[in-house]
């Protein structure tokens, strides 16, 4: 049985949605912290902004959940397709030399996976109310993706930029 088929009530769907967004916000903040500590303020600011947007989205979902009983699910019991929520960026994808363009590409991957997650549920959940709300969220994620695409146009850095380190870390002579 697919996850979409298992999400058969609004409370479970909202629980997944809130956790998806809040984990994404926390991860963006974590990545922003990493960049601040490593003196990459531009990328830090980008991740911080992305955290802000994820948090706004999470708050919106929490508001819509008002009066409902969100489930309490242990972090490891969420049946995400990957090892973490679909909008949670992978820590191993970042580097202290990364640029805003790289950060935006990571964010776009996150938004794409979030869109796919909601889209699958909008097609596969047995509950019509879940399907409708999931379709709405999928559409929102698509809009985020389009906004990120426009933002990225202003940052045409190549992946090669991140690999060139003028002061590489290595063992002292």
């Amino acid at each position, binding site marked *: 049985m697919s996850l979409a088929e298992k999400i058969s009530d609004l409370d479970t769907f909202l629980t997944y949605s809130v956790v998806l967004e809040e984990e994404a916000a926390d991860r963006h903040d974590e990545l922003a*912290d990493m960049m601040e500590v490593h003196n990459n303020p531009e990328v830090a600011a980008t991740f911080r902004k992305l955290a802000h947007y994820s948090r706004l989205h999470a708050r919106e979902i929490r508001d819509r959940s008002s009066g409902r009983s969100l489930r309490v699910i*242990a972090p490891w019991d969420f049946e995400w397709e990957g090892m973490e929520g679909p909008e949670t960026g992978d820590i191993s994808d970042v580097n202290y030399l990364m640029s805003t363009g790289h950060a935006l590409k990571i964010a776009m991957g996150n938004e794409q996976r979030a869109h796919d997650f909601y889209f699958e549920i909008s097609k596969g959940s047995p509950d019509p109310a879940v399907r409708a709300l999931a379709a709405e969220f999928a559409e929102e994620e698509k809009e985020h993706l389009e906004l990120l695409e426009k933002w990225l146009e202003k940052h045409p850095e190549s992946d090669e930029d991140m690999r060139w380190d003028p002061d590489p870390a290595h*063992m002292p002579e």
Partner: protein
Amino acid sequence: MDQAAQQIALTPKDFKSALKPVWCPGCGDFAVLNAITKALAFMGLPREEVALISGIGCSSRIAAYTSVYGFHGVHGRALALASGLKAARGDLTVLVAGGDGDGLSIGGNHFIHACRRNMDMTYIIMDNEVYGMTKGQASPTTAPDWADSKLTPHGTGIRPFQPAGLALTAGASFIARGFTGDPNGLAKILVAAIGHKGFSFVQALSPCPTFRPEQMLWKHHVKAFDQEISSNPVEAAQRIQADDGMSTGIIYQNERPVFRPGTGVDNGMGSIESEFTI
């Protein structure tokens, strides 16, 4: 309070300090921190009843990044410190963390004796197969042909330790391996390890993006053990030997008497000392 209510009471963020980690961006140690804080939040442990003891090295900085009691100790001596703490304050939940060099080289002797002593604590080795803080030298878990360090330009040529096998031989009563690319899976293992009565050992495969960038590919090789937890040491040993070191899950768990000061064999000192009493 049931587990669900406890989870609401404390969040993982409550277990983090205000300090921002100085680990390299991309380091697996961030995920260990996340896994520990998620595990503690899930278990609903009061912060003042938990202590995290560490040694020296990149990973050992972790004690400062949590809001529980912490002690950033001496190189290789985290388990000695933690054993002292547990002896004095048996009521505390004691976690110990450090790297593969700290725990298996400088602290190797403490490690094997902590395993056999079986005090009730959880030891996490954040294994990146390299000394990172000193800029990339081979550690006891480094493959013999790793030649990227200037100290060992042709590799060490020495067979690496298998931390899980070493722990089993030395008598650890709980042995598991997790991966930082799966912080939720690692948190689940930590909940079981902390809940275990006795010495629990968790090897966390934690890639080093700076000195071992090839480890960033571990996420494509790690898989879950396809067998149930074993309580049979022979079976567990076979499982560890047959594995490539990239399988995750709880490998071995058994009940064994937990060492507490005063519960060992009477060394006769009491009767000798009583002779001095006037």
